[in-house]
């Protein structure tokens, strides 16, 4: 049986463009450049690696986002992904991780026979790392987070190595399952000319609430359990001190400052 892998990606603002204006202390974004969440590119790469070893594998990428997110999907096709589906509907706006997972789960179900879902560890705009595990729970499939290596064990199981704060763990995961992956699964390959041509022509279907059979009240902001009540700039750091003088003087000053700050181990 050929394997079907679904990869979930997200378009995020390029971190280079997000900063605080020191004068107004507000968030400034120059331009509206979006990139594919870096961890999701690792997820795409992980799927393509499996496809490399078994050519019959089909990789479908999905994303929930505004119409322009279709560009991100096309970019993954240019890297070798087979198909892409855009989940886009005004009703999806303002979704928290629960409402996002609800929408993604409906899409994975609609895709049908899915053997493996791969997500990036987290998106770099929200940094929650919640959608993967929540999606797996809604799909009622097992999952493994922070995966750095994936090996096929037999037709029905995968062996994965996950990175934890304490070390690594080797897990045997039955299929279908969901994995969230980290950088170590492999550097994303570059788009190729052949796939770029394909990406240009590819049909990217758009599924909204109706196509997914979802209640508009259960998605987007209305379907979210959490609510943002305030957004503000983080407190700014105290004034920086530049340590002047010759190297020995700089060393002495730093040593004293760190002593004063009671840095452990000093």
């Amino acid at each position, binding site marked *: 049986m050929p394997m079907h892998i679904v990869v979930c990606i997200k378009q995020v603002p390029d*971190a280079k463009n*997000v*900063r*605080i204006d020191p004068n*107004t202390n507000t*968030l*400034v*974004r120059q331009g*509206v450049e979006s990139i594919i969440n*870096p961890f999701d590119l690792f997820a795409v790469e992980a799927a393509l690696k499996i496809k490399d070893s078994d050519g019959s594998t089909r990789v479908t990428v999905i994303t929930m986002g*505004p119409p322009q997110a279709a560009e991100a999907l096309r970019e993954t096709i240019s890297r070798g992904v087979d198909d892409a589906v855009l989940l886009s509907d005004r009703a999806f706006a303002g979704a928290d*991780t*629960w409402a996002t997972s609800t929408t993604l789960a409906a899409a994975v179900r609609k895709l049908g026979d899915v053997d493996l879902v791969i997500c990036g560890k987290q998106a770099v*705009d929200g*940094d929650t*790392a*919640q*959608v993967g595990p*929540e999606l797996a*729970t*809604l799909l009622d499939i*097992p999952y*493994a*987070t*922070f995966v750095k290596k994936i090996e096929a064990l037999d037709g029905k199981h995968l062996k994965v190595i996950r*990175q934890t*704060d*304490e*070390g*690594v*763990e080797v*897990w*045997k*995961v039955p299929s279908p399952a969901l994995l969230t992956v980290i*950088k170590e699964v492999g550097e994303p390959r570059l788009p190729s000319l052949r796939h770029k041509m394909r990406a240009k022509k590819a049909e990217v279907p758009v599924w909204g609430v109706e196509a997914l059979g979802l209640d508009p009240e259960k998605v*987007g*902001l*209305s379907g*979210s*359990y*959490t*609510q*943002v009540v305030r*957004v*503000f*700039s983080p407190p700014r*750091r105290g004034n*920086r*001190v*530049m340590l002047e003088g010759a*190297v*020995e003087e700089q*060393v002495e000053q*730093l*040593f004293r400052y*760190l002593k004063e*700050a009671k*840095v*452990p*181990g000093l």
Partner: protein
Amino acid sequence: MKALIDHLKCTVCGVCEDVCPVSAIKVGETSAEVSDDCTLCGMCVDTCEFGAISLPEAGTGPAADLASYSGVWVYAEWRDGTVHKVSHELLSAGRKLADKRGVTLAAVLLGSNLGEDLSSELIAYGADEVYVVDRPELARFSDEAYANSVVHLVREKKPEILLAGATSMGRSFVPRVAAMLETGLTADCTELDISDEELLLQTRPAFGGNVMATIICPNKRPQMATVRPKVMKPEKKDGHQGRIIATALPEECFKSRIEVLEVIAERDQTAKLTEADVIISGGRGLRKAEHFALIEDVAQLFGGAVGSSRGAVEEGWIAPSHQVGQTGRTVAPTLYMAVGIAGAIQHVVGMQGSQVIVAVNKDPNAPIFDVATYGVVADLFEFIPAFSRRIRTERGEA
């Protein structure tokens, strides 16, 4: 849905147009207008000094029997026979929340052959009750068995707040708990408080720490949050009394579809990165792999960990597990020392939560100095050995 503009309050100052990350706001002649591109991120709301912008209310379903939920719970993480520091921190933070609400503080302890010491330690940090589930199936972590157990306890006891550490374990299984309970979860909080409406105010960084957001979960219980380690202050409550409650759960709680084949502890610097009080990081300025020895030497003097920039990893000078930043680890030690690191935003987002940041760089214009507490413009090959010597002299080792 999109952000709402009060046309009477809008002064067409244009600040909202500048902050909108998706360029959905255009300021017209008499008022700002929001297009359908609005993602309801809320960035504009707080930047409007005139209070002209608001978000539509989240519809959050029927507000069920919220009043039947009471108490603050902390998931207590432990390893090698001791309670994880983050659990001390959470109990201290949870104690304040529970006192503010006038409710009890409980800890949930899962594992195998736990012994009483762990529970006593949790009580010493403020827990009134410790629910202990001691089962061989819980000897090794698995998302399903751990989440199912917590879910079962929550359904039975109905706490109003459930907190866990934003560790690799907490961030892995707690989303499953939230999804099974069908409630909201806020990740990686750095501040917790109780609002006038008695709701949990969960504040967390977003956009790589460039903005802070305060989040509530008005209509679902428990209100759930993971909390970033090393942010809350641990406070021991000497003489605090509590009850240890051994709890039996149905067999099906302990079932897991995955099988843990092997657990390999990494006792080197890399695994310590997120827990270290001191991190000394090296970047491209080190010029070769061998020069990381300088960094390791200082790290060892502090009993700290070695970090690196992406540049140094890409050069192949150090393993990716040391990388701090957007695609690496996010760290917040007491001292972060960036040596020969330029300070690209991708690096800064991974370390700007550190208490004291020391930047050592030859280039006085390096962006790393923008986030530094102490800046040292110097040749690192002179400065770092001199700094090590100074520490050794102080210790009489020189």
